[in-house]
């Protein structure tokens, strides 16, 4: 069977192994099949990683030579740039493009266990095959018990804060997805186990008094709007640029409302002039259209301080012919174009006048309106309308 050599190697692999058994102990040990496989895999993994690291270093040196850079200058950003230059890829999915990264970052991680002197795995949950997730489940269970006990003991008493006896505040956030939880615990587990964890979490969060475990719960939650960096739905606030000729600051953004697209440019130090395809504010005959156009200025209290220039691809029938442009497509109602321009203007004002970002956001002017005309359905007169039913 396997001799001490293997035990020694297992010790070398485990990160927190206790001091070794004396070298003189040469007795033959029986080692289980699972551990044997584990040790073999572990050795193989270490060897493979060594090889890949060496390969990566060699590759890096070659790349530095090819790009005529010093090896010290070639950091990860420089590598990415070089790869993009050498292997230009038209593939849309970033995962499908060629990469060159340190093997520790991209190769699958090897899950390591710690062993005691006798070569038995430490931790009672080793043989569950999912020690981390079962650990989390039992932790949730313990916390659930303690929350229930805490509530029973303190309900109606004045010794604790009343806010502690309420349910945890989870508004605006959601449980982290299975993939993120796998990454967080660095362990693979089935969807079924994930489902059980979420059910356990939901139960804990629904208990009165779970506010005391708020911190623990929020570790496993993420904000719902995390997909965008800012709290804005749609476009981000554009960058401020400076016009070389007039030396005035301006911001430019392309936006849309329904199917009307608009490129809006707002210039600082203006007089409150509008030029939408050459049309001015008074060319919009509907009062509501004018209100919409002026809304960002009313909210940010900057009436008459900025100039707005916008170009679109279509204007509504009620508007006069745009000067200096070939005839535009005549579609859209009376509010689509002003609303598109309003969104663009608000974003540009937020860039030029940062104090007004919060009022603009709360009034909903920085939100891209996601609503659209619903398509009409086959065999129906409209999107929702139905033909009148007739027997014959």
């Amino acid at each position: 069977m396997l001799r001490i050599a293997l035990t020694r190697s297992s010790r070398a692999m485990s990160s927190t192994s206790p001091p070794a058994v004396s070298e003189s102990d040469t007795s033959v040990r029986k080692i289980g099949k699972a551990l044997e496989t584990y040790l073999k895999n572990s050795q193989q993994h270490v060897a493979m990683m060594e090889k890949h690291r060496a390969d990566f270093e060699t590759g890096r040196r070659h790349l530095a030579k090819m790009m005529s850079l010093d090896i010290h200058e070639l950091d990860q950003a420089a590598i990415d740039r070089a790869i993009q230059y050498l292997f230009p890829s038209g593939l849309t999915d970033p995962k499908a493009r060629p990469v060159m990264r340190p093997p520790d970052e991209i190769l699958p991680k090897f899950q390591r266990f710690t062993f005691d002197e006798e070569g038995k795995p430490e931790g009672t949950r080793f043989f569950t095959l999912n020690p981390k997730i079962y650990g989390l489940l039992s932790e949730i269970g313990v916390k659930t018990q303690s929350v229930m006990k805490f509530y029973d003991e303190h309900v109606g008493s004045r010794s604790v804060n009343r806010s502690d006896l309420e349910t945890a505040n989870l508004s605006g956030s959601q449980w982290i997805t299975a993939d993120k939880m796998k990454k967080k615990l660095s362990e693979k587990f089935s969807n079924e186990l994930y489902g059980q964890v979420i059910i356990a979490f939901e139960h804990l969060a629904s208990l009165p008094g779970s506010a005391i475990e708020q911190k623990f719960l929020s570790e496993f939650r993420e904000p719902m709007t995390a997909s965008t960096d800012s709290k804005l739905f749609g476009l981000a606030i554009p960058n401020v640029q400076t016009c070389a000729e007039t030396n005035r600051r301006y911001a430019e953004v392309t936006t849309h409302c329904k199917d009307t697209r608009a490129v809006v440019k707002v210039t600082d130090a203006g007089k409150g002039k509008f030029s939408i395809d050459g049309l001015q504010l008074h060319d919009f005959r509907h009062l509501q259209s004018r209100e919409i156009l002026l809304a960002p200025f009313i909210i940010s209290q900057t009436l008459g301080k900025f100039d707005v220039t916008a170009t679109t691809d279509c204007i509504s029938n009620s508007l006069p012919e745009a000067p200096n442009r070939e005839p535009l497509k005549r579609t859209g109602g009376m509010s689509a174009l002003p609303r598109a321009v309003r969104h663009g203007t608000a974003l540009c004002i937020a860039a030029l006048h940062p104090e007004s970002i919060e009022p603009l956001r709360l009034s909903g002017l920085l939100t891209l309106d996601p609503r659209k005309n619903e398509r009409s359905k086959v065999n129906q007169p409209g999107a929702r309308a139905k033909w009148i039913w007739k027997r014959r």
Partner: protein
Amino acid sequence: MSTKLARFAQKRWISSTTSTSNMYDPRLFREPISDVQELRKPLDADDERNFLFVKAMKSDATPVFYRDHVIDKLIRVCTKDGEKETSRKNVLSALEIIKRRQYKAWAKATDEEKQSIELDPFVIARKGIRNCHPLMKLQGVTRGGTTYQVPFPIEEPEAEFRAMKMMRDICRLRSKHGETHFKDILATELLAASQNEGSTIQAKQELHKTCEANRAYAHYRA
């Protein structure tokens, strides 16, 4: 089985909020603030708008200084075939007519009477609509194949709507092509209603009478 359970465990399925086919995901979007005064105040720390998206501002909610809840609602109620701009023109010209009439009366009046004449048409319109608010509504309830007109209590916004609707229907009945105009009749109606007179007030009282007569059906309210 496992995929089913995982799908069940997704927030969407456990969450108690109903998700409809709304472009604004109800879990992510909250209503905007359209009042300028309120926007200046700092937001509460636990307000959901601190970390969620805010819906886009509505087209007719721009906080201009002449924004008036009652007039805006009256314009919406009087709109026909989606022609809001026509309806706005009608209502605003009715207000202008009120202003002219009141000013004429004011100019003729003696000094004591001048005190009692209200010149602001917005105030008159608000008061007129307020006077027309019904206290109850009649709603058909079918029991045993017979439909009974059962009186129901109503909330403030619905009372406001029903007052406007009664007034609008009366004005539409009376306005004839080319002879009489909606705006003139609406102006007369609003002025009369602000004095607790006129056909809308009569219609309201009629409704109250019917409600009183049908009170025996009140137990059909389910």
